[in-house]
């Protein structure tokens, strides 16, 4: 999916290069359309990358749980602590990123 989005972005860039060839009246409108399309593609690319990253992490966790289930393993206090440390670090990083995003918003 990321490759497909990248190809579409390259296509848009190529089309943008042809804008000067259009008559003045059409150039502005065509430029606006390409700009909107570019933003939509850029957001789609970010979300697609995020979805792929999450799918890989969930697949790794599922494999770990399947192994636990097969071994009839009872989760230990150390394993719980490690998982909660991960959550605390991720939550902290998320909130920091959100604050940065808010600060950058005009």
């Amino acid at each position, binding site marked *: *999916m990321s490759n*497909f*989005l990248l190809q*579409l972005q390259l296509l848009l860039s190529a089309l943008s290069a042809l804008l000067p060839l259009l008559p003045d009246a*059409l150039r502005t*409108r*065509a430029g*606006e*359309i*390409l700009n*909107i*399309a570019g*933003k*939509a*593609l850029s*957001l*789609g*690319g*970010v*979300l*697609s*990358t*995020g*979805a792929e*990253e*999450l*799918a890989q*992490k*969930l*697949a790794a*966790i*599922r494999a*770990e*749980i*399947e192994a*636990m*289930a097969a071994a*009839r*393993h*009872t*989760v*230990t*206090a150390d*394993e*719980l602590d490690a*998982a*909660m440390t*991960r*959550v605390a670090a*991720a*939550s902290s*990083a*998320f*909130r920091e*990123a*959100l604050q940065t*995003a*808010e600060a*950058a*918003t005009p």
Partner: protein
Amino acid sequence: MKHPFRALALACALTLTPACAALHFTPPNPIAAAQTNDQRAYALIQSYGALIETAATVVRDPSVPIEVKRAIGRAEAAATPSVQTLQIAFSAYLRAHAAYVTASRADDSTLTRALNALNAASQSLGQSINRAQATVAELQSLMNTHGGASR
């Protein structure tokens, strides 16, 4: 260009199609692989960690609208405390389980008390899992809709 708005709508539809296709995927479900409450709770906590890590990546991207980031932030603010409550119930369950294992070498009345405590802790853990799962599902649904997926 006779119909600029039609052209604009077509351009938007064409560009949003791959983005929408990317968002409505079915991610692997670690919780479904669990066979016991402790494994289920562990799978949920780990999945939530992965979800928040991905949410942070999405929030760091300047091309994602601030409204989407704020909505993900509100869902995270609701889900993280419920996962912390789950941790408390999980710890209580692990202590009750350890006490039961120790009591299995003791007399019948000690064993019965330990078994009752373990059953109560297991029930409480199950309720905490359900509550946390609901708030985590909200965040995940938001990520699926706007940005990125533990069903």
